[in-house]
C-alpha cells in the first residue's frame, strides 16, 4: 500500500516534470518554439526522465534488496543462543519471525516475538529511508533538468537516446531469459551427471527413475537410460508426421492451386483454428475417444492393443500439427512465381503436371522447412502424450504398444513432492536439456532452409 502511494507520487512528479519542462522551454524563447533546437515536448520529456528514472531506480533497488538486507539485519540482532544454531534451523527461525510479524502468528518464544517487532520496525525504517531518497532524487532531478533548459539544448537527441536504451533493454529481456533457462538447465544437468554418468544417460536402455529415500531401502538403485524415452518420442512424432505431412501438404496444394477464392477464405481460417485448440483438449480427445477406438478396432482385428497406445497419441498429435504443415506449405506454394506456372502451361503442361513437376519442386525447400518446424513442435509436445501415451518406458517400434516420451517423463518426475537434489528430480533437467538441444537444432535447420529458399525469388 505504502509502495503504491510512493509510486503514484513519483509518477505524478514525473508528470509535473513534463509540464514544467515544456513550459520552461517555451518561456526561455518567449513563446516562439521555432527558436528552440528541440520541440517543447522533448524538453518536457527530458525533465520528466530526469525526474522519474533515478527515483524509480531507487525504488526498484529497494524492492530487490529488501528481503536479503532484512534477513541479514534481523539474524544479526538475534539473541546469541538462537544465532548460534545451524543454518537450516536459523532459516526456520527466520521464517517463524516473518510469520509472526506479517501474518499475526503467535510467537513461540519471547526471543522470536522480540525479533518480529525488530523486523517490523526495521522494515518501516528502510522503507521510509527509501521513500525519502526517492522523493529527494525526483525533486532534485526535476529542478536540475529544468534549470538546464536553454534554447540550444539538444533535448530531442537525448530523449531519443534514452528511448533507444529502453528498446534495447526490451529486446534483450527475451534473449537473457533464454540464456538463463539454458544455463539453469545446464547446471542442474551437470549436477545430475554427477550422480549418473553421461554415457549411461545417453545410451542406457533401461529407464526406471526410482531412487531410494533412505540409503538402506530395498531397490535403491534407479536406472536412468534415456534411450527408451527418445525412442518413444521419435515413434510418436514419427506417427504424427506420417499423418500431418500428407494431409497438410495435400490440403495446402488444394488450397493454393485448386480452391476457389471463396472456399479458400472460409476453409483456411478454419484449418488454422486447429492450431488454436488447447493441447489439453487434444489430450483428452486422444485419451478418451481415439485410444479406446483404436483398442476396440485392434481387438476386433485380433490384435493386442495397449489402452494407451503410441498410435493414438501419434494420430491426434498429427491432427494437431496439420496447420503447421499446411499453413507454411501454402505460403511457400503461393510464393512460387506465377511466371513459372505460366511457363509450364505455355509448354502444354496440365495443371497436375505443372504442380507436380514445377511448383512443388520449386517450393520444396520451404515445405521441408515447414515439416521440420512441425516435427520440432511434435517432439516438444507435452499435454497429448501425458494424457494419452502412458508411462511405461518400453523400447519398442510397435505403435500398438504403450510407450512414453521425454516430455511425459519430465512431467511425472516433477509432479508431486520431490527433493530437488535427488537424481530423480535432476533427471528432468537433463531430459529437458537433451530435448531443448534437439528442437533447437531442428528449428535452426528449418529456418536455414526456409531463408535460403526466400532469397531465391524475392
Amino acid at each position: 500500500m505504502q509502495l503504491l502511494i510512493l509510486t503514484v507520487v513519483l509518477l505524478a512528479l514525473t508528470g509535473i516534470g513534463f509540464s514544467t519542462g515544456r513550459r520552461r522551454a517555451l518561456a526561455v524563447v518567449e513563446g516562439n518554439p521555432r527558436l528552440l533546437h528541440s520541440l517543447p515536448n522533448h524538453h518536457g520529456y527530458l525533465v520528466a526522465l530526469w525526474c522519474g528514472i533515478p527515483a524509480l531506480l531507487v525504488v526498484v533497488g529497494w524492492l530487490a534488496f529488501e528481503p536479503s538486507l532484512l534477513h541479514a539485519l534481523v539474524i544479526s540482532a538475534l539473541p546469541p543462543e538462537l544465532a548460534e544454531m545451524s543454518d537450516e534451523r536459523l532459516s526456520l527461525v527466520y521464517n517463524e519471525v516473518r510469520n509472526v510479524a506479517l501474518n499475526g502468528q503467535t510467537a513461540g518464544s519471547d526471543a522470536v516475538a522480540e525479533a518480529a517487532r525488530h523486523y517490523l520496525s526495521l522494515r518501516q525504517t528502510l522503507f521510509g529511508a527509501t521513500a525519502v531518497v526517492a522523493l529527494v532524487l525526483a525533486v532534485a532531478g526535476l529542478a536540475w533538468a529544468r534549470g538546464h533548459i536553454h534554447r540550444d539544448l539538444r533535448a530531442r537527441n537525448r530523449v531519443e537516446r534514452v528511448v533507444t536504451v529502453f528498446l534495447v533493454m526490451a529486446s534483450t529481456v527475451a534473449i537473457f531469459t533464454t540464456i538463463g533457462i539454458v544455463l539453469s538447465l545446464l547446471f542442474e544437468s551437470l549436477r545430475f551427471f554427477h550422480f549418473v554418468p553421461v554415457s549411461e544417460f545417453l545410451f542406457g536402455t533401461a529407464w526406471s527413475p526410482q531412487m531410494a529415500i533412505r540409503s538402506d531401502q530395498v531397490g535403491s538403485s534407479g536406472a536412468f537410460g534415456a534411450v527408451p524415452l527418445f525412442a518413444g518420442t521419435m515413434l510418436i512424432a514419427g506417427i504424427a508426421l506420417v499423418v500431418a505431412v500428407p494431409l497438410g501438404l495435400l490440403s495446402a496444394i488444394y488450397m493454393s492451386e485448386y480452391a476457389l477464392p471463396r472456399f479458400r477464405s472460409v476453409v483456411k481460417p478454419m484449418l488454422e483454428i486447429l492450431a488454436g485448440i488447447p493441447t489439453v483438449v487434444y489430450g483428452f480427445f486422444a485419451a478418451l475417444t481415439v485410444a479406446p477406438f483404436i483398442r476396440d478396432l485392434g481387438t476386433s482385428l485380433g490384435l493386442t492393443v495397449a489402452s494407451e497406445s503410441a498410435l493414438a497419441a501419434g494420430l491426434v498429435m498429427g491432427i494437431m500439427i496439420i496447420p503447421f504443415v499446411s499453413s507454411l506449405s501454402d505460403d511457400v506454394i503461393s510464393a512460387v512465381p506465377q511466371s513459372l506456372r505460366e511457363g509450364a502451361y505455355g509448354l502444354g503442361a496440365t495443371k497436375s503436371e505443372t504442380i507436380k513437376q514445377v511448383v512443388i519442386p520449386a517450393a520444396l525447400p520451404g515445405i521441408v522447412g515447414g515439416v521440420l518446424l512441425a516435427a520440432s513442435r511434435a517432439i516438444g509436445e507435452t499435454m497429448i502424450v501425458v494424457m494419452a501415451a502412458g508411462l511405461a518406458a518400453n523400447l519398442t517400434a510397435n505403435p500398438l504398444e504403450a510407450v512414453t516420451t521425454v516430455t511425459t517423463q519430465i512431467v511425472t518426475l516433477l509432479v508431486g513432492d520431490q527433493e530437488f537434489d535427488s537424481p530423480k528430480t535432476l533427471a528432468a533437467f537433463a531430459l529437458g536439456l537433451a530435448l531443448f538441444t534437439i528442437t533447437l537444432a531442428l528449428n535452426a535447420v528449418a529456418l536455414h532452409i526456409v531463408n535460403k529458399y526466400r532469397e531465391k525469388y524475392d
Partner: protein
Amino acid sequence: MNSQVTAHRPQGCAKVSARSLSVHYGEKHALQAVDLDIRAGEVTALIGPSGCGKSTFLRCINRMNDMVEGAKVSGSLTLDGSDIYDRALDVVQLRARVGMVFQKPNPFPKSIYDNIAYGPRIHGLARDQNELDEIVMTSLERAGLLAEVKDRLTESGTSLSGGQQQRLCIARAIAVGPEVILMDEPCSALDPIATAKVEELIDDLRENYTIVIVTHSMQQAARVSQRTAFFHLGKLIEVSDTEQIFTNPQQPLTQGYITGRFG
C-alpha cells in the same frame, strides 16, 4: 533480305486468323472486335501503348487467358482454320502447337537439360533417351545456346545469365516442336547485348516458325518483324507491312505513336 522471303511466301496463307475477336476482363472490354491475320513463316510484331490489348491478343492464341479469372472471349480465332476456342479442342495439344516465351525469363528450377526436356517428356515426344538427347541438343543448337552451355547441361537453369535464360526459354519452347511461337516482350528484362542475340535468334527462327512478338520497342519491331499491327485502347488501329507502318502510316494515331507523340 526481307523482300526476298516475302516474294517466296505463298500469299493469303493465314496461320492464325481472328475475326471480330473481343475479350472482356469482368467489366473491362480489353479487346474490341479485332480482325487480324497472322501469316505463316514471318514475324508479326504487335505494338501499342500499355493496356492497348496487344498482350491480351497474344494470350488468346494459346488460351493463356483461360487462367485469368473473369476473362471472357467472343468472336472467332482459328489456327489453320480450326477454332481455338472450340470446346472439343484440347488446350494441352493447342499449347504444344503454340509455344510461348514470356517477358521475364522463367526457367524452371531444374537443370538446363531438364528444362529443355520438360516439354518433350510431358508430351511423350521421345521414344528413348537417345531421341530425347537429340531433341535437347537440336533445340539448344537452334536457340544458339549450345556452344555456351554444352559442358554444363546438369547445372541449374537459374544459374545462367538473363539473356541465356531467355534463350533457354526459347529453346524450351522449340523443343516441343510448335508451329507458332508467341513472345511477350521477350527482351524487356535484358541488356542491349542479350537483346541483340535474342533478336538475331528470332530472325533465324522465322523460316521454320510463325512468330508473334509483343514489344514496346519500335526499333525492335522494325528490326525483327515483317508485319506490324498497331493496337490502341483495345482496338486494332492499323496492320500492314512493317516498312509501310514505319515509313508511311495510314492512320493519324499510328503516325502519332511511332513518332513518339504519345504512348
